[in-house]
């Protein structure tokens, strides 16, 4: 197996286990490259990539842009706040206008679930989903699983608990798909009001008690409380959430075993993680950021290999 089974990266759901392994193997090569004295390779010098961000993002956008530039692609950036979208242009019109500029790959973040699938059916470019609403965020799941693989040698058989707002989280859904495909056991933890109804269908069980969850797991992937996606109040106050579901050093010390802490960022310090945990040796949060660039390079490189230039 040396080629992806898909033409776009729309979600982890559509990938096979060997696709994921191929991406990781390729990311291993890129991780070496980005630690060389010269961190750039000329692979994609005849490729143009558009980063379309219809929703705010700092690190995902930076990470994609860096990955694209390290591959020597030409990059154009678009964010909806400063564009004609505010003048009422449709998604398809916006994207077709950008494609008329001969773009080969589109990296898109959009607030509507399924936006990237819609795009892949209607336009002739490779699509990378950089987060679509509450649906999927595949590259985040890839870099998370890659970071676990890097720390433990393999993902298979590891116990991973995802903590926080599972209901609104595309990171959680993509992580569940990805980790299960790689043979890990995944559970979730958080207030019942923030749990989706379809947990059973995903074959994931739920802890209400944080300490019980931490005692069970090898890795805790802690999510940010996304207040911007919550139309109603799902818990009384951030202070109360932090008291019940926030992880601090005392709690970690009381476990009697060492676990690894992950977070996709940005961290609400003092809410889901205290500063002494976020900055401790248990945390691999900054490794996740570095691995993000390597994994995004791998995804873009592999998809670009499927473009035919004649």
């Amino acid at each position: 197996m040396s080629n992806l089974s898909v033409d776009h990266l729309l979600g982890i759901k559509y990938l096979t286990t060997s696709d994921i392994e191929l991406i990781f193997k390729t990311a291993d090569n890129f991780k070496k490259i980005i630690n060389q004295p010269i961190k750039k390779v000329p692979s994609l010098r005849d490729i143009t990539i558009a980063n379309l961000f219809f929703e705010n993002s700092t690190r995902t956008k930076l990470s994609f842009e860096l990955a694209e530039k390290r591959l020597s692609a030409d990059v154009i950036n678009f964010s909806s706040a400063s564009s004609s979208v505010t003048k009422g242009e449709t998604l398809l019109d916006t994207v077709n206008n950008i494609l008329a500029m001969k773009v080969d790959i589109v990296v898109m973040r959009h607030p509507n679930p399924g936006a990237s699938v819609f795009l892949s059916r209607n336009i002739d470019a490779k699509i990378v989903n950089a987060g679509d609403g509450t649906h999927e965020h595949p590259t985040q799941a890839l870099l998370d699983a890659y970071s676990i693989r890097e720390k433990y040698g393999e993902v298979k058989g590891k116990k991973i608990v995802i903590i926080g707002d599972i209901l609104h989280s595309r990171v959680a859904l993509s992580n569940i798909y990805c980790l299960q495909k790689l043979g890990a056991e995944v559970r979730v933890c958080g207030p019942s009001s923030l749990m989706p109804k379809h947990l059973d269908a995903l074959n994931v069980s739920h802890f209400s008690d944080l300490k019980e969850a931490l005692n069970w797991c090898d890795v805790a992937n802690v999510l940010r409380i996304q207040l911007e996606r919550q139309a109603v109040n799902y818990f009384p106050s951030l202070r109360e959430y932090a008291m019940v579901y926030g992880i601090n050093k005392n709690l970690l010390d009381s476990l009697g075993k060492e676990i690894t802490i992950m977070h996709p960022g940005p961290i609400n310090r003092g809410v889901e993680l205290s500063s002494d945990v976020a900055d401790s040796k248990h945390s691999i949060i900054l490794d996740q950021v570095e691995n993000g660039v390597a994994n995004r390079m791998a995804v873009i490189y592999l998809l670009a290999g499927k473009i035919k230039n004649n």
Partner: protein
Amino acid sequence: MLEERELLNKQEIEITIERLCRQLIENHNGFENTVIIGVQPRGTFLSKRILSKLQTLVSKTKIKSGNVDISFYRDDLLRRDEPIVPQEMDMDLTIEGKNVILIDDVLFTGRSIRSAIDALMTFGRPNSVELLTLIDRRYSRHLPIQPNYVGRTIDALESEKVIVEWDEVNGIDRILMRKSE
């Protein structure tokens, strides 16, 4: 129909490698400021052979070596049907100011060597770069690249293929020319 003929057998390969090593010693003396770099994937087998032979002839210094992967430096990603599978970049050494001997098994169009030189330069500025190849398919170059050390020079048609087999992969050391019609 496939037609095959042997260009070099095991013994001839051994003799050729020994001769190439002696030529290297002539130019590089004690190898104090020289590094040997194999081109992934096929050049690494030859590079290993050269290295172990050299080491028996020049026992005073430990000769430094590495392997360079050219996947991301190629110019045909969008022009081929098969994907390019990256190999390991094994370059735990500095080439800054060194005399580099680049090793590949077959020199054909010269495009791989162009990629290898580009890849090499990302690790520093070498003093010089030389090329050693077991088979030189002359008159088939797409780029102005010539080897400094050659095992055997051959004339072959575009449709003919040179196949280098190594004991560690194929169970035998030999070089074949395959004609496909």
